[in-house]
């Protein structure tokens, strides 16, 4: 048999050797393979680029050589260097008649070019020609290129041919034609909108490959518009049924599973089609139920299908039986030892709880385990789940956890994400104002620069607007606690800019509102901030605006303003600032201080950030003035649109447009700049007054805009900040939002608070129940911390009636629940713990870590040769075992290695597989040896051969390297190790 295999290899080699890979190429591959560092690799590639630049332009390069050059270019780009100098040669190679050259050319172009590259136009013609070729492999090569390189502009050039190819006799061509259409649809759906019916037709193609491929475009189309494809539900169901019943050719099997990838795609499609559609869903129930029933939970691929079933079941119109089956499957995932399955389980749980919220509680501990797992991926997935489970009863625990995690990570992308989640949950479910402020403080403190600016505006507005309901007192408390916490936090070093902005604004607005702090104290703090963050102009702008407000309130209250020296110097600094915005604010402050109390109060009313400002767009209050002027003989105003033909040079706006239209040089002299208007100060307080100021808009519009965004009292509430706020007030504060679970909430919150009355019946029941728990508790030890966490996450909150009906062990769950909580906390938690753990204590499901099991088990089922080798193993095994794997082995190896090497020495060709053959045998051998001695080490995913230099490795190296005609000093033995070893 061994000989047979070798002969087979050599036959295969014949064609491989036929490529005649040159020594140069072998050297290149070898040196890249042996490169020790990225720097070394880069040096090799740079040298290679130089070589290629010289060689590729030589005249009369043989085809074979050219193909090799192109592949070397692929290497150059793959390793991160620019190979654009050779693109044109790849283009040329697509013209070649030789199929392999052509396909390599196309391949190179798809890897090199984006579909907007200039060279594309040069190959459209070739593609067109190739699409009409008689050789179906040429057509396929062209279609591959079509799928990658044809852009919106060039679609029409190839579309007719592609459509024709949908009816090509070869299934491989039909399949690729379908995918080409799919690509056109993705690129420009309008270009093929009249052709989508083809996808429906191709679904009935008698080749399963074409049918399977067609599912991809159909899935996209259905996801966009499910209602138009409802008629296909029956077809999809029947296809799925046939696939699951093993009606497709055996070659589609994967590890004895019938066409799993097609099944999964079909389940995805059904999930979309059945969503919210009872009628469509009813067609699906049987087949999905059947697939779940027959599901194989011992293999990865089986579990992949089962997971997809859960997704489908939780997406379509709910069916009680299926949901139960899905929950059972999911329980297996969550209880598995495999992290992969746990991950899938957590994800699936997140889907299931949307429909049946009670499923989560039996998995409390599994969820908490995942949350505390060192694996970030699992942790994040669990946060995702918790996010979906959050309600007002557990928001504190969940958000606290999220924040702790947020602080611990350094990945900005995820930090941003989880920060926004925290904010969202806090806004929706916050149990108290105080907590809300505290939470927001933490988020800002640790992720301040990552959160969206809107969040800061939201917070300011929330504090400013209050919550409506309990009116003044609650709002004032909130503000006081905010001020208090900010004054505490200010001392911390390096606060994020955005947080400081919020702090400045709140201090300016409410710092002295409750009379606890004096104005000089607050202004001092504000100056401290401005000084500590003197590089941050935005913060400085907020600070000076806050100072302005501070002084305004003081003046309005009739107190004498005594500016602290540091405030004075701060203002002076800003008066001379390079930033016109800061300068303006400083001048405004100065002007304001000089005014009398009444004026100041109108300009800066206290706590008026959320008052509506009526903007008098007609400027009606000027009517009197206008009238007077007219009477004095002024010309009446002519509206702009009636001014046709008039060239008004002094009109800034028209000049502006003029300018932008021309974009040329201007030869006329610039306008004399107008002196700054003293009335400018007025812009600050009344937004309407900006219209009043007779200063050209273009000059100041930017500044006034900035002022408004910087949170000047009168404008914070204006349109710019409205972005996310609409729902907030409704969501915030009261737990009205917590949707379907709210009913169970209200009943269940009692136990958590400990406010319960015990009836005789309940105690009786409870004591019995507790006995049960206690005995169980002895068997399983779970840390009290986890129990506590479980209790707070899942709380009593999930003890619904539903649960009592499902769990037979607790006869009157609802009655016993309040009672239990009256016992010490320890009693609550173990009882819930026991719920989860009893199931766990049943014999563990035989889900091995699939990674490993499939690697070791799968190949034998595929490769008959290996089975035979496996038979050979034990005999050799025993010898190696005794000789500690070194002494005997080399003999065998040298024996094997010598023959092919000598045979090949004449031709000097490259024939790695011949020796690789022996190598493989030996690698299995050494594996088996290790397996035999240590028993359980089979679970290590790597072949042990990788570790440490052993005889096998050195031999492998030696043999392969000799084949390459290079010295046997390979530095990278890994290159030779079998991937499927």
């Amino acid at each position, binding site marked *: 048999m061994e000989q047979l295999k070798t002969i087979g290899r050599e036959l295969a080699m014949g064609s491989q050797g036929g490529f005649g890979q040159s020594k140069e190429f072998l050297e290149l591959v070898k040196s890249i393979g042996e490169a020790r560092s990225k720097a070394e690799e880069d040096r090799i590639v740079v040298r290679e680029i130089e070589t290629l630049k010289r060689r590729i332009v030589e005249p009369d390069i043989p085809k074979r050589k050219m193909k090799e050059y192109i592949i070397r270019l692929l290497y150059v780009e*793959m390793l991160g*260097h620019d190979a654009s100098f050779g693109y044109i040669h790849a283009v040329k190679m697509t013209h070649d008649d030789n199929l392999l050259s052509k396909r390599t050319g196309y391949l190179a172009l798809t890897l090199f070019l984006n*579909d907007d590259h200039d060279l594309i136009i040069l190959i459209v013609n070739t593609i067109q020609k190739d699409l009409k070729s008689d050789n179906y492999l040429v057509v396929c090569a062209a279609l591959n290129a079509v799928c990658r390189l044809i852009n919106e502009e060039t679609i029409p050039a190839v579309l007719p041919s592609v459509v024709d190819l949908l009816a090509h006799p070869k299934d491989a061509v039909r399949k690729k034609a379908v*995918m080409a259409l799919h690509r056109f649809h*993705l690129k420009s759906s309008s270009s093929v909108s009249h052709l989508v019916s083809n996808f429906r037709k191709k679904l009935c193609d008698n080749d399963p490959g074409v049918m399977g491929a067609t599912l991809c475009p159909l899935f996209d189309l259905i996801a966009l518009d499910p209602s138009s494809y409802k008629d296909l539900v029956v077809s999809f169901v029947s296809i799925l049924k046939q696939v699951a019943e093993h009606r497709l*050719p055996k070659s589609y099997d994967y590890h004895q599973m019938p066409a799993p*990838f097609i099944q999964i795609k079909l389940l995805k499609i059904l999930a979309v089609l059945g969503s919210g559609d009872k009628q469509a869903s009813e067609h699906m129930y049987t087949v999905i139920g059947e697939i779940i029933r027959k599901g194989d939970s011992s293999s990865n691929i089986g579990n992949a299908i089962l997971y997809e079933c859960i997704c489908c079941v939780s997406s379509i119109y709910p069916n009680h039986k299926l949901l139960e089956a899905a929950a059972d499957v999911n329980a297996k995932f969550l209880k598995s030892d495999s992290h992969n399955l746990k991950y*899938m389980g957590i994800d699936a749980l997140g889907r299931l709880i949307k429909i049946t919220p009670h499923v989560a509680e039996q998995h409390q501990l599994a969820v908490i385990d995942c949350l505390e797992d060192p694996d970030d*991926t699992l942790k994040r997935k669990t946060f995702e789940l918790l996010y979906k489970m959050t309600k007002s009863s557990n928001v504190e625990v969940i958000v606290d956890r999220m924040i702790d995690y947020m602080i611990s990570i350094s990945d900005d992308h995820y930090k941003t994400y989880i920060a926004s989640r925290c904010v969202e949950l806090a806004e929706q479910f916050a149990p108290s104002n105080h907590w809300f402020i505290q939470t927001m403080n933490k988020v800002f403190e640790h992720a301040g620069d990552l959160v969206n600016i809107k969040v800061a505006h939201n917070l300011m507005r929330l504090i400013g607007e209050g919550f409506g309901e309990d009116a003044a007192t609650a709002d004032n408390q909130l503000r006081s606690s905010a001020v208090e916490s900010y004054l505490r936090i200010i001392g911390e070093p390096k606060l994020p800019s955005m947080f400081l902005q919020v702090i400045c604004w709140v201090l300016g607005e409410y710092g002295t509102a409750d009379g606890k702090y004096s104005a000089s104290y607050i202004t001092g703090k504000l100056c401290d901030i401005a000084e500590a963050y003197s590089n941050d102009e935005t913060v400085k702008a907020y600070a000076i605006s806050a100072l302005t407000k501070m002084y305004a309130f003081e003046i309005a209250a009739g107190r004498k303003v005594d500016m602290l020296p540091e405030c004075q110097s701060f203002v002076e600094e800003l008066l001379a600032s390079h930033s016109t915005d800061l300068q303006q604010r400083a001048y405004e402050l100065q002007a304001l201080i000089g005014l009398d109390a009444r004026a100041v109060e109108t300009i800066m009313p206290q706590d008026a950030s959320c008052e509506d400002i009526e903007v008098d767009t007609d400027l009606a209050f000027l009517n009197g003035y206008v009238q007077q002027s007219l009477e004095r003989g002024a010309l009446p105003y002519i509206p702009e649109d009636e001014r046709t033909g008039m060239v008004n040079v002094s009109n800034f706006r028209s000049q502006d447009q003029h300018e932008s239209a021309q974009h040329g040089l201007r030869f006329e002299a610039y306008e004399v700049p107008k002196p700054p208007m003293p009335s400018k100060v007025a812009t600050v307080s009344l937004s309407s007054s900006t219209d009043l100021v007779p200063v050209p808009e273009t000059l100041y519009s930017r500044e006034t805009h900035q002022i408004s965004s910087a949170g000047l009292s009168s404008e914070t509430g204006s349109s710019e900040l409205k972005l996310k706020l609409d729902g907030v007030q409704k969501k915030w504060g009261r737990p009205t939002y917590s949707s379907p679970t709210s009913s169970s909430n209200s009943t269940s919150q009692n136990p958590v608070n400990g406010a319960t009355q015990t009836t005789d019946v309940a105690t009786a029941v409870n004591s019995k129940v507790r006995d049960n728990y206690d005995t169980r508790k002895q068997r399983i030890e779970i840390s009290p911390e986890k129990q506590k966490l479980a209790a707070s996450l899942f709380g009593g909150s999930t003890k619904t009636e539903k649960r009592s009906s499902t769990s037979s062990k607790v006869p009157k769950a609802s009655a016993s629940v309040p009672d239990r909580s009256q016992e010490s906390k320890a009693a609550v938690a173990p009882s819930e713990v026991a719920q989860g753990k009893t199931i766990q204590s049943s014999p563990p499901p035989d889900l091995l870590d699939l990674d490993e099991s499939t690697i070791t088990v799968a190949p034998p089922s595929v490769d008959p040769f290996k089975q035979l080798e496996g038979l050979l193993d034990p005999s050799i095994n025993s010898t190696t075992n005794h000789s500690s794997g070194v002494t005997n082995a080399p003999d065998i190896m040298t024996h094997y290695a010598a023959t092919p090497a000598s045979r090949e020495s004449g031709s000097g060709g490259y024939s790695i597989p011949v020796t690789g053959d022996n190598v493989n045998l030996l690698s299995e051998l050494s594996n088996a040896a290790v397996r035999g001695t240590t028993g359980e080490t089979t679970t290590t995913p790597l072949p042990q051969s990788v570790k440490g230099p052993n005889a096998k490795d050195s031999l492998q190296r030696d043999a392969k390297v000799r084949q390459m005609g290079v010295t046997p000093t390979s530095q990278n033995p890994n290159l030779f190790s079998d991937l499927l070893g």
Partner: protein
Amino acid sequence: MGIRFVLMVNKQGQTRLAQYYEYLTLEERRALEGEIVRKCLARNEHKCSFVEHRNYKIVYRRYASLFFLVGVDDGENELAILEFIHLLVETMDRHFGNVCELDIMFHLEKVHFMLEEMVVNGCIVETSKANILTPVQLLDKTS
């Protein structure tokens, strides 16, 4: 879209094969590959085979010294992708026989041809090994 890229990278972080189903510039690729490999190498075998990175979810699997990394969209079934990787390795194994890293290096274009049969527009379109390998073998014969 589904699959966004398929990468083969060895333990030293050297790229052995890269196929992107959306265009990224050289610099972007280089950065992405570096970051991902660092992330995946830092994980031990007890952790799950999925990693989130930027907007990708990466499903990876290690064979000997070679990492197979597949970047996918959110809606993808991670376990199925994990098996897709295995299918790819099995397919290569059937063609090369006891495929090793060096086979991939010497026959880079062939591995790409196989991938071209299996994945189009980021979708898995062919999973029958026979169908995947037929064109590759025919190419061998004709040349």
